[in-house]
């Protein structure tokens, strides 16, 4: 990165913190701090909902995934617009009219305190650990790219986000999200344009698409009915629908965004705004990753994308082994370039066999390099998908643009972190502190403790991120645990709003049954994770209704 890149990044960081503090001034009570005084317009809330969902790893991970695997990940978002419509008709009006702070607060009014407490606790457990990963994962990539220590990146990213969320609460979160989403959109279109502009003369956009299509990277619609195949059309439409219903309907980090709307109409419009834009936006992000794949046909990619692991390979592998790998990689890359150009020239008449053979040969050499680094790392699995896009940015973007796109990655991470710190503090304050400990305190006391809980969750996230290297498997377990109950909580909310007769006991024991069912499906079958939310929601709903109908009053009294 050049001094100009660093200047752009520093201006972004200082500017966003200053703007966040300025935008968040004037908080006098919890209603201001947690729900921005319930005065926000749809477009601001809509951009905040979008920014909260796009994490840094969504941004660099999906472009990397498009590079290695193609665009089929897009199906995950196919259910989102339908989910938004369903939520606007069902849950959003219930939440808005109940004047609640948290989604789980509504469950106590509909069922009982234990259902509210359990669902809120599950949110705190899963989101609390996930926020550490949200901070750690991009820090790991950015540290390698920028040459910083991991701890420095974690503290800069986490500390600057804590600073404005601590002071300004949800107002700061929403207004900084608006700015950050603007930066992210600019960065996405910039990268897309640059990837096209940097294709060699005589090799056009349609040539790039033809090449990508030959490798299967443009294949999005897989109509396979298999429940185990990843990212099929049906898992996207049905599994993706339930995933988005769970995330936008039952996850406090999103519910809190649209509860800040000035009216029910404003809240609904913020979700519909996302329904219109999300699929096209993800399409452009994934297509950018595919274009980077084509771009590297004409520019030599590194043998390994993770620069730190590449240095390790250079230091630890024998000189002959390393020289051999490099020579084979350079030869295979040159051969692939020639085959790609020949295929583009003969498009429509020639066949793609030579190109695909050359592509396989290049991947085989890279596979050897990966196996070598895994051997040098004691067998630890190596995956550098998240490093592809940042490496491309800092290597080929000039004139401060690399700094700007690194700022985009920071913006994507910070917008998600800000929403999560704010929502974790809200659930802690409303569902536990005020519910069980201090229900009737002054507005000043409540505001102080709301800020302290924000600080505590921010510090916890930094602590988890700093220890993530050592906690690796534990974090994976917690994240897997999160996927067990996401759909199950959706089932509880479905019981709450769709079935007036569903009992509190039915909802509580249904939730237990749903989580157990997802755990069993996960452990005993190879069903793809996108279906877990369907299983959880359906089991909770069915068991909840069955308990209500069969056990009736006896269950209600239990």
């Amino acid at each position, binding site marked *: 990165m050049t001094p100009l890149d660093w200047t752009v990044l520093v201006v972004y960081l200082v500017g966003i913190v200053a703007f966040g503090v300025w935008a968040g001034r004037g908080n006098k009570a919890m209603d201001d701090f947690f729900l921005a005084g319930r005065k926000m317009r749809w477009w601001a809330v809509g951009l905040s909902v979008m920014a909260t969902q796009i994490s840094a790893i969504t941004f660099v991970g999906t472009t990397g995934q498009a590079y290695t695997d193609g665009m089929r990940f897009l199906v995950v978002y196919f259910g989102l617009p339908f989910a938004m419509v369903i939520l606007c008709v069902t849950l959003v009006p219930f939440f808005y009219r109940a004047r609640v702070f948290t989604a789980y607060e509504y469950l106590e009014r509909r069922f009982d305190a234990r259902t509210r407490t359990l669902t809120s606790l599950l949110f705190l457990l899963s989101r609390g650990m996930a926020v550490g990963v949200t901070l750690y994962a991009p820090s790991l990539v950015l540290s390698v790219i920028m040459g910083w220590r991991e701890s420095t990146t974690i503290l800069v990213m986490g500390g600057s986000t804590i600073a404005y969320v601590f002071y300004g609460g949800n107002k700061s979160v929403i207004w900084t999200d608006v700015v950050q989403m603007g930066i992210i959109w600019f960065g996405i279109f910039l990268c897309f344009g640059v990837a096209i502009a940097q294709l060699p003369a005589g090799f056009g956009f349609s*040539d790039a698409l033809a090449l990508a299509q030959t490798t299967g990277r443009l294949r*999005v619609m897989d109509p396979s009915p298999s429940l185990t195949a990843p990212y099929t059309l049906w898992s996207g439409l049905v599994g993706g629908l339930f995933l988005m219903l769970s995330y936008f309907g039952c996850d406090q980090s999103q519910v809190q965004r649209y509860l800040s709307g000035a*009216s029910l*109409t404003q809240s609904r419009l913020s979700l519909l705004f996302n*329904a219109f834009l999300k*699929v096209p936006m993800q399409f452009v992000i994934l297509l950018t990753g595919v274009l980077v794949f084509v771009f590297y046909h004409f520019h030599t990619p590194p043998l390994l994308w993770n620069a730190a692991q590449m240095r390790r390979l250079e230091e630890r592998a024998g000189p002959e082994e390393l020289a051999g790998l490099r020579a084979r990689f350079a030869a295979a890359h040159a051969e692939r370039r020639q085959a790609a150009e020949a295929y583009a020239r003969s498009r429509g008449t020639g066949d793609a066999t030579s190109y695909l053979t050359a592509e396989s040969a290049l991947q085989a050499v890279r596979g050897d390099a990966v196996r070598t680094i895994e051997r040098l790392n004691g067998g630890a699995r190596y995956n550098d998908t998240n490093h592809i896009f940042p490496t491309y940015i800092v290597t080929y973007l000039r004139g401060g643009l690399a700094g700007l796109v690194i700022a985009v990655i920071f913006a994507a991470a910070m917008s998600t972190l800000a929403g999560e710190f704010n929502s974790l503090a809200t659930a802690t304050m409303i569902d536990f502190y005020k519910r069980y400990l201090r229900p009737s305190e002054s507005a000043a006391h409540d505001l102080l403790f709301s800020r302290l809980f924000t600080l505590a969750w921010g510090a916890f996230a930094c602590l988890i991120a700093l220890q993530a290297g050592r906690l690796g498997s534990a974090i994976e377990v917690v994240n897997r645990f999160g996927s067990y109950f996401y759909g199950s909580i959706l089932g509880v909310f479905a019981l709450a709003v769709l079935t007036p007769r569903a009992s509190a006991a039915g909802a509580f024991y249904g939730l237990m049954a749903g989580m157990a069912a997802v755990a069993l499906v996960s452990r005993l079958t190879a069903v793809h994770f996108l279906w877990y939310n369907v299983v959880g929601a359906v089991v909770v709903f069915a068991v909840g209704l069955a308990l209500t109908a069969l056990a009736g009053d006896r269950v209600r009294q239990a």
Partner: protein
Amino acid sequence: MDEPPDDPVPIFGTWPRIYAAVIVWTLANLALIALFSAWAY
């Protein structure tokens, strides 16, 4: 489904119309993506 809005619904006028617009837009998106995937470039 179509309850009285507290603010007017912009452009589309009523909630059923805006929901229908979202669904039509999404189906058009999916059709274009399918076409994009299968197009002979």
